[in-house]
């Protein structure tokens, strides 16, 4: 905006109060993460006593040793990577060509196909029919079921389609002059031009896959196939009222609280690592998605 000197005293007060409020909101967003990180590095005794407020008390990495020594933690971590990478690639394999086709004016029944995609954003059959359908398809308790069952998302298709529609016709015409077929036009011209939009969609997929928990919990019974989030829930939610667990750990170097804090930290790290890339793209992506329709 313009120069600060232009503002009256009232404006300056307004600006300062505003900054303070934003700072408070920001701190309250950040604090729980700091608290959890500190908790994970404190001794079980201090954590139980409620002595951890900001920094670790009685610094120890016992909780992490405990978490990392659990085989189920590692297998669920590996599964999460399988679901995230496999699922994202699967999504892109459906979304990119689909969005391209839907963006081409020469496609017959284009309005109908687009409506068919958009309708799923407003109405879906709900939990039970979806679950029964997955069961009937034999996709319960299967890696493939999780990877393919959630591959397509109407919002992502429309976002990418809008971006493709915005690419000037002349690019396509030039490629056609050179004898490119539809696949070559998509792969050699549109995909490189749509990199920001594709990156956005890919990152949306990565985040939702990494965080996905409900359907993994419902569809997977076999413990060796569960992703990290389901394992996390098992530990945090199911053991939180397990008195036996709570009592045995009362005096040890780690406690239920520090162990669950350590798992939380371990599972946030990958998201934090890709967050800078996310940050760069998502606001652009949201804008892209909001331009039309």
């Amino acid at each position: 905006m313009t120069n600060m000197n232009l503002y009256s005293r009232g404006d300056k007060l307004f600006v300062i109060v505003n900054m303070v409020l934003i700072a408070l909101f920001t701190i309250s967003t950040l604090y729980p993460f700091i608290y959890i990180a500190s908790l994970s590095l404190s001794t079980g005794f201090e954590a139980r006593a409620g002595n951890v407020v900001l920094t670790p008390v009685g610094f120890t990495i016992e909780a992490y040793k405990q978490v990392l020594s659990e085989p189920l933690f590692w297998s669920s971590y590996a599964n999460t990577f399988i679901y995230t990478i496999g699922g994202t690639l699967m999504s892109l394999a459906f979304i990119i060509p689909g969005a391209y086709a839907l963006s081409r004016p020469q496609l017959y029944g284009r309005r109908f196909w687009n409506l068919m995609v958009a309708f799923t954003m407003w109405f879906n059959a709900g939990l039970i029919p979806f679950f029964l359908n997955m069961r009937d398809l034999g996709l319960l308790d299967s890696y493939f079921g999780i990877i393919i069952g959630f591959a397509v998302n109407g919002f992502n298709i429309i976002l990418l389609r809008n971006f493709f529609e915005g690419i000037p016709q002349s690019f396509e015409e030039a490629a056609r002059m050179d004898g490119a077929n539809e696949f070559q036009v998509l792969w050699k011209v549109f995909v490189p031009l749509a990199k920001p939009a594709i990156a956005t969609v890919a990152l949306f997929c990565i985040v939702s896959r990494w965080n996905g928990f409900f359907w993994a919990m419902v569809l997977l019974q076999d413990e060796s196939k569960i992703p990290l989030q389901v394992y996390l829930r098992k530990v945090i939610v199911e053991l939180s009222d397990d008195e036996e667990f709570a009592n045995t750990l009362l005096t040890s170097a780690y406690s239920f609280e520090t162990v669950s804090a350590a798992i939380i930290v371990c599972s946030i790290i990958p998201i934090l690592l890709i967050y800078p890339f996310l940050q760069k793209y998502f606001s652009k992506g949201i804008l892209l998605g909001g331009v039309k329709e």
Partner: protein
Amino acid sequence: MSNDPNFITAAGPATEELVFDATEAQRRRKPSRMVRVGDHLKREWQLYLMLIPTIVWLLVFLYKPMYGLQIAFKDYSIFRGIADSPWIGLEHFQTLFNNDQFLRALRNTVIISFYGLIFGFPMPIILALMFNEILKQTFKKTAQTIVYLPHFISSVIIAGIVITAFSPSAGIVNTMLGWFGIEPIYFLTKPEWFRPIFVGTGIWQEAGFQSIVYLAAIAGVSPTLYESAVVDGASRWQMMWKITIPSIMPTIIIMLIIRIGNMLEVSFEMIILLYQPATYETADVVNTFIYRQGIQGGQYDLAAAAGLFNAVVAFVLVMTANTISKRYSRTSLW
């Protein structure tokens, strides 16, 4: 075969009829609809090849379950399958509306959504307006980066943080209450605390990220409006009320319509993680009811009926909101 033009020519008129004259040629240059579609498919088959997987996926994973919705009106038996189970009409709906648990879930859904609307909806707007007033770019960027973050953290982790922070022995909330001499409260087992904690968590997690949409809308406001306001001696406060807010009103209304449309879709994943039998009284919503009755309890038909009811009410809500908005503000989703 029918998309092969040679095939069509072969089936055309016999050679002796092919006396060339201008009108005849004119007539032939306008091929039948079938031929046109055939030619089109031959030329553009690659496009359809690209579209088919997506459409098939939608049919298999999203439209086929819509066919399965009919079990809401059937006495569904796993062994007979969807098609062969006998119709029973509206019996499941009658059962639901005589079921205290369902009615409680319905009431809770409405109340929690309403709280979310009252407290949750304005927050991102306020945040966006506040961010817009910050002049120091580095401060603004840093603050935004931090408040967007919780959106990317899974509900399981958020629930884990909430459970840890509100725990009676070690939780920071009770520690802080202890400073004021307040006895520890076992928050997550107290029905009266569930809604504030749930709604508050939702705001903490999403308000920052949702402000992006409004910031984008604010970025689109013409700078000349502000320039002329400065000339007229407007204060920042006045500019916010007289220029920024009216300018982003269409966006606010669209977001409100979407919000109302999703009103019954309270994020039940989080509820499943945070509630327990002690708090069902205030925490159980329609979707968690469906999850317990259907997926855990195996009463698929009854749960599907509850789901259908939910979806229809949601659909009516969004249509109504859109119509009202169209009438009074000329802003609508479609």
